[in-house]
């Protein structure tokens, strides 16, 4: 039993953090909102060079062969800066899905990702919507025969849908039924759950980072902002708002790390562990959004102030990858099944 990260894993996290906080600043995100550039190719190139985008691709295909335990801390850091480029979905959703498939074409797609030839996105199994579809060459989705297909985006008709998060670029796809079949429908159940789990896990990990970011913003603001001749952070009412966020975050983290471990090892209870992680992390982010806004007062309610970059993103991550209702229902199904183990010895059994 050893529930810690290795020195290497922590070092990789630190170097990723340094890179991201320097590069992905709120002002750079705001430029993206305003400009009609569909992607920040400069940033993507840099992250490709750093090996982050191909981090989870097997070494024999040119990637670094990292697993979900290695990558979870990096996903957290991507959440911390509200990274708009689909790096986390590439590493934690697209790549693992392609790695599950046999045949030459999935391997070719993985090699293409390593070379930086193109991006690949996935259709949400709940809504059918696709993030960043217009910057992708392929969209992975289930067709009406429950086959997993890779559709070429050039064949599809895209229409963009506005999200309240100005950084989220999401599309509905038409005429994208055909595509190249990657896997027949005999593995639909497995792959469908696999996809949901991957997305939920990716969102949970990023939500931890978002929570930390919103907490940091509020703590810093509460030190600077004075009222009644004191920093507002010296008032217990404000302290306790933010202490509650810290508690939620502290207890959400290990559920996400356990989910990473279960995912990596294909543990039989991985779906439950991921649902737990999704609920815990997204609820922490949602409390952070609410309480950090309260700590900021009216300033937090302005477009100019950066808090909403992160609070809107946290809404997106909670809603997608299976909303909380989906994950609660999935947990309840297990909790009340006859063979479900509960009690003091059940956690790691």
């Amino acid at each position, binding site marked *: *039993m*050893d*529930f*810690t*990260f*290795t020195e290497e894993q922590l070092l990789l996290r630190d170097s990723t953090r340094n890179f991201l906080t320097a590069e992905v600043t709120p002002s750079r995100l705001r430029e993206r909102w305003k400009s009609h550039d569909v992607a920040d190719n400069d940033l993507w190139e840099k992250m490709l060079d750093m090996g982050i985008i191909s981090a989870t691709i097997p070494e024999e295909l040119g990637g670094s062969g990292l697993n979900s*335990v290695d990558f979870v801390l990096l996903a957290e850091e991507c959440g911390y800066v509200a990274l708009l480029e689909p790096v986390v979905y590439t590493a934690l959703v697209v790549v693992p899905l392609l790695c599950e498939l046999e045949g030459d074409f999935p391997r070719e797609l993985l090699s293409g990702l390593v070379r930086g030839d193109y991006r690949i996105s996935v259709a949400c199994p709940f809504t059918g919507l696709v993030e960043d579809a217009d910057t992708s060459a392929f969209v992975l989705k289930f067709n009406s025969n429950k086959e997993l297909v890779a559709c070429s985006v050039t064949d599809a008709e895209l229409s963009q849908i506005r999200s309240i998060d100005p950084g989220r670029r999401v599309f509905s796809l038409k005429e994208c039924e055909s595509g190249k079949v990657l896997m027949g429908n005999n593995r639909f159940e497995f792959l469908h759950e696999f996809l949901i789990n991957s997305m939920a896990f990716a969102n949970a990990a990023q939500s931890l980072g978002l929570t930390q970011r919103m*907490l940091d913003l509020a*703590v810093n603001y*509460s*030190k600077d902002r004075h009222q009644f001749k*004191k*920093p507002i*952070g*010296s008032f*217990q009412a*404000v*302290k*306790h708002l*933010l*202490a*509650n966020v*810290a*508690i939620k975050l*502290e*207890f*959400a*983290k*290990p*559920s996400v*790390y*356990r989910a*990473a*471990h*279960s995912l990596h090892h294909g543990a039989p209870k991985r779906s439950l562990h991921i649902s*737990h992680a999704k*609920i*815990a992390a997204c609820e922490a982010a949602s409390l952070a959004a609410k309480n950090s806004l309260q700590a900021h007062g009216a300033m937090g309610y302005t477009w100019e102030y950066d808090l909403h970059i992160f609070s809107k993103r946290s809404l997106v991550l909670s809603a997608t990858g299976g909303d909380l209702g989906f994950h*609660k229902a999935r*947990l*309840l199904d297990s*909790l*009340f099944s006859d063979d479900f183990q*509960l*009690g*003091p*010895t*059940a*956690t*790691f059994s």
Partner: protein
Amino acid sequence: MDLSFSKVELEFRKEIRSWLRENVPDEPLESFDTELGFHQHRGWEKTLYAGNWGMVTWPKEYGGRGCSLIEWLIFEEEYYRAKAPLRVNQNGLFLLGPTLMEFGSKEQKEKFLPKMALGEEIWAQGWSEPNAGSDMAAIQTKAIRKGDKYVVTGQKIWSTRAVWADWIFGMFRTDPKSERHHGLSFILVPLNSKGVTIRPIAQLNGLTGFAEVFFDEVEVPTHCLLGEEGDGWKVAMATAGFERGLMLRSPARFQETARRLVDLYKENKQQADNDPSILEAVLRAYLDAESYCLLTYQTASRLVNGGHIGPESSTNKVFWSELDQSMHSTAMSIIGARADLMSGIKGAGLTAEWLDGWLFAQSGPIYAGTNEVQRNIISERMLGMPR
């Protein structure tokens, strides 16, 4: 990261499980807040010690097994799984024990630890005073040095287990001119000393789980000073670190309550579903108890690997006390119209364990530092917010 138990850990689990199966009394003991129950529980401590299970993490020379923290968590899991009696000496074992390990002299360790593990000396806590509750630095009870003795005069209150305990530990003002957290010392006092008067206080369940303790020129040998004179605050705070946070309330306790809650819900599903909030509350009990277990294993692993506990450990107490409250109030909602009935009609009395737990859970956010104080600590020491 490896979330499976090693062969050694599994062997350890097997050993404690089979010992508990042989030795845990079939009939539950009386509450240790009654005179009979206290003596029964003292007897149980002796049984544990005889099996070498008194305090598994302590070194062998003090009556322990030198186990790792992970093994401690396994021990606790098996202990709660087996429904073994609560530890009447928890003040000693979980609070004073770690403090003695860190600050005690060799002589003090040899004098106190084995008898603590054996249950021969049961400990009470002496922190609060009538005018020093959350504001612990307002302590006034004096311990004035005269030759090789301290003369203790004053009053402690809310002293857990003091009614039948043998010793009390706490902070006393050894420098009468000092103020606040200066001039305090951590001293151990035998409760059978001349000049000690104990006045039991009935708790919400009517039992005397705590007491007022009056000291009238009580003479205590100076070798009962723990740490340096005047360092009492430092000694008390240092042990507010991990072992206190980790050991006082182990996750197994709450996981067992969550398991019972799921069973209670299943047995009373029709009644419970009248209130649509109950199902979610049951799920949350399971998830939160699980989260508490995960965080504890994470912390224990970090410490086993040579890491240190940080200020984030102060989140523990708020979390488990609120979890315990919410699980028990959910149980009350499930039981519904008969929730308050202790005996006299069919079905009543079955809920006695839940009622006991429900009352006790109300004290969780108050003892061991109120949750308001904990939230101040979290915001100031963990988040760095201004005082």
